[in-house]
């Protein structure tokens, strides 16, 4: 039982509100919780259906009109990412060390050797929450998202 419901019942017990008022308030709370629950379920369903990773670069409207603009639209299936990540186990150990060193130089403390097939699903799951939206100084809009 939520705190709000308890408070309403306490107010009813102390005769601060009538039974009708208590019923109306409880119904309102139930309605709100129901809506939040269904919204949460819908959001989970949308996330569960994430099938593609999208990368788009849209030019600013002025350069689009002049025709001299760059435009990128990439759609990568999640299954392809999943299959590609599995290939990390084929990277030779010398190359892995170089990758680790390069990552460390960029300030990323991550060891590629620690990446296991079990982690792939977690990684894909985390990608579902990813959304990057950047507008450059030239007015170009770069978006990375999952759909």
């Amino acid at each position, binding site marked *: 039982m939520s705190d709000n419901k308890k408070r309403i019942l306490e107010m009813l017990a102390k005769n601060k509100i009538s039974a009708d008022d208590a019923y109306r308030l409880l119904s309102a709370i139930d309605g709100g919780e129901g809506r939040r629950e269904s919204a949460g379920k819908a959001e989970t369903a949308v996330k569960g259906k994430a*099938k*593609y990773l999208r990368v788009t670069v849209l030019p600013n409207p002025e350069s689009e009109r002049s*025709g*001299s*603009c*760059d*435009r*990128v*639209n*990439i*759609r*990568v*299936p999640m*299954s*392809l990412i*999943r*299959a*590609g990540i*599995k*290939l990390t*186990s*084929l990277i030779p150990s010398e190359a892995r060390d170089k990758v680790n060193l390069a990552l460390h130089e960029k300030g990323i403390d991550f060891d590629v050797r620690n990446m296991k097939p079990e982690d792939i699903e977690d990684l894909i799951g985390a990608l579902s929450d990813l959304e990057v939206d950047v507008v450059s100084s030239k007015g170009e809009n770069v978006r990375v998202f999952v759909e």
Partner: protein
Amino acid sequence: MKRPPTLMHLRIQGERGGFGLWLPLFLLLPLALVVFILLSPLILVATIILWPSGWGKRASFSLRAAIEIFWSMRGLSIDIHSGHQCVSISVA
């Protein structure tokens, strides 16, 4: 069950013109299967010979990964425009 890609469309557009190419992957798949069946004894022998050195395991894993990547390509779309040039690849 995942379905394999059936068609690949490649389009390259330059300032002086361009071309588009439809690749019927569904026709290439049976051909690839026949080639694989014909070469499978050789692949098997090579894998057995190279197994002690570790390369056999790596080669078989690579082959499996390549097939899996090909199977997962359905839905891939790359569309890049730069000025009047354009490269577009889509797999359906």
